[in-house]
């Protein structure tokens, strides 16, 4: 049961500065073959940076060891709720590395990159189709960036109609933290509404805040409790009835593909998290993509450029291709402008495109069906182990209260840390905020029944440990390279950069 961490348990890796030896180098410079000249201004050179001096082998081993300390979905189960940590097929990487994609430059003439533009156009079209929207912009380069873009589009729509007083955004109390953060960043005001006993938006509370100052509602469906909004038509009617728009947080779109289209459910705008639903790499500071889809009335406001196509026989089509169509970049009429340099994170778009083409429409529906089935299977396996937040059929994820009835002093955090010893990444903890000791579990469609069974067995075994030996959990993890981190001290006295020995 317990994972064998092997080399990953061998201890903490020093920072690269600690490996430095004066004079050691990773490269050999060729002989100087130009006249030597003094640097223009020696005062511009800093000598306080103290860059590390290491050999190529030191360098390689350091980063390979670091990579072995990492947890990844390619190593094991990663049920981090709301993050959709599905396996990313390696064919995505192969496609993104094709020279025709990898070696293009954003300043190349459009005639020289017709294939790239075709890929972007087809991705726009596929996203429109799968979510039921009239337009898509691939510009935003992360989920939260897509959110900000979406809210700016809603605001631009109202302003274009001379409706200047719509400055309030309604956000349910189950929302992702990015929703209120986005609202603030857009210069608008957050109005929070509670959830009802079944985990839906409380309709009476929503009605009481609806009015002529409402810019829109930000709604995640299924919501962060993993529950489908049961009163969605009434919610749509309320918000649209008071002149507001409905923003869909697409973080949980993995539950819906091929089954329900947000655009047809009444959403006016939604961002896609390509790194969640469409299997592109997650964060880590690297590139992401958060395309935004919109209903007809918001198409003119999309950020640009977006990719359009014309047929060679049409007047004004700048065609040099033999295929008969020409792809070109256009800025929508009343566009909120650029939200990013160039054309979004193109390499990420290639990966998402590859994923969608590899699966096809039927495959995407199967993804969502399996994601929902896996979540409900795991929830059922955990019955009697940890209490689930709401007794309903769940969508792609569910939330349990991280408290074993027989061990009230053991908290969600202790359970999470102990799961590391069992070779599992912990679920999201303490979110959503409305469930005490929340553990938010999203298995995704790519996990096998055996993995789900093993995870359920681990949580059951940890429950027995919690009852018999709670200290074991309070001190977990025991097998990870570093033990329990002092989160309080890290937050109160953060050390943000290495300052030597």
């Amino acid at each position, binding site marked *: 049961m317990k994972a064998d961490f092997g080399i990953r348990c061998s201890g903490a890796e020093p920072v690269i500065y600690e490996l430095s030896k004066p004079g050691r180098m990773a490269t050999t410079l060729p002989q100087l073959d130009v006249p030597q000249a003094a640097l223009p201004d020696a005062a511009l050179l800093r000598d306080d940076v103290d860059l590390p001096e290491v050999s190529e082998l030191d360098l390689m081993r350091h980063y390979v060891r670091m990579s072995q300390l990492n947890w990844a979905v390619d190593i094991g189960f990663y049920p981090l709720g709301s993050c959709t940590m599905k396996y990313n097929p390696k064919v995505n990487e192969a496609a993104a590395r094709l020279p025709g994609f990898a070696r293009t430059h954003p300043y190349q003439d459009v005639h020289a990159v017709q294939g790239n533009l075709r890929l972007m156009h087809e991705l726009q079209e596929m996203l429109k189709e799968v979510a039921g929207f009239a337009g898509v912009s691939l510009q935003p380069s992360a989920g939260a960036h897509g959110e900000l873009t979406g809210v700016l589009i809603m605001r631009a729509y109202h302003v274009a109609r001379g409706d200047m007083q719509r400055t309030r955004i309604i956000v349910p109390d189950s929302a992702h933290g990015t929703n209120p953060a986005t609202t603030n960043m857009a210069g608008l005001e957050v109005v929070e509404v509670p959830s009802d006993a079944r985990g839906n938006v409380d309709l009476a509370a929503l009605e009481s805040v609806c009015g002529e100052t409402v810019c829109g509602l930000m709604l995640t469906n299924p919501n962060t409790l993993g529950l489908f909004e049961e009163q969605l038509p009434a919610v749509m009617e309320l918000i649209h009835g008071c002149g507001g728009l409905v923003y869909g947080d697409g973080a949980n779109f993995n539950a819906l593909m091929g089954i329900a289209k947000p655009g047809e459910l009444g959403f006016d705008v939604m961002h896609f998290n390509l790194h969640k639903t469409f299997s592109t790499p997650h964060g880590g500071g690297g590139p992401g993509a958060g395309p935004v889809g919109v209903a007809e009335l918001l198409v003119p406001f999309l950020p640009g450029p977006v990719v359009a196509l014309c047929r060679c026989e049409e007047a004004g089509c700048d065609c040099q291709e033999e295929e008969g169509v020409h792809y070109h970049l256009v800025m929508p009429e009343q566009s909120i402008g650029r939200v990013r340099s160039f054309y979004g994170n193109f390499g990420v778009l290639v990966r998402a495109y590859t994923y969608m083409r590899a699966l096809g429409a039927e495959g995407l529906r199967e993804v969502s069906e399996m994601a929902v089935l896996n979540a409900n299977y795991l929830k059922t396996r955990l019955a009697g182990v940890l209490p689930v937040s709401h007794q309903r059929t769940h969508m792609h994820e569910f939330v349990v209260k991280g408290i074993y009835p027989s061990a009230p002093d053991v908290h969600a955090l202790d359970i999470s840390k102990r799961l590391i010893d069992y070779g599992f990444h912990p679920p999201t903890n*303490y979110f959503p*905020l409305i469930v*005490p000791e929340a553990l938010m579990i999203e298995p995704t469609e790519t996990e096998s029944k055996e993995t789900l069974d093993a995870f359920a067995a681990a949580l059951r075994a940890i429950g027995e440990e919690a009852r018999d030996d709670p200290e074991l959990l309070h001190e977990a993890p025991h097998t990870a390279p570093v033990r329990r981190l002092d*989160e*309080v001290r890290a*937050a*109160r006295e953060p050390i943000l950069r290495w300052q030597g020995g």
Partner: protein
Amino acid sequence: MKLDPNCRYDQEHEWVRVEGDEALIGITDYAQDQLSDVVYVELPEVGDTFDQGDVFAVVESVKTASDVYMPVGGDILEINEALEDSPELVNEDPFGQAWFVRIAIADPSELDDLMDAEAYRAYVEGLDE
């Protein structure tokens, strides 16, 4: 759970201790226990004015960030700067050293909306069920 019999309480777990026309405001022992270790407190500025129910501060713990609401409206006369460097006071002494702000009460009748210590205890016990 600790309570201060000289305070009045609202449903969002703030306490208010009236001193003449002024009042001290903080968060309750129950609130700090729910938040766990507090790592940061964001306070308003002296001279700011808030209505009853307005968000006037934010308290951040290792678990979550939470808004703090005005139990009664008024002007901010003084803020507890000690909380900037020692947010742990909120956990250690919520009714004493960890007061958040001192205000000039705008409308004393708003105090009638608040609970006394026993009513607040009953309210909290109801929440835990």
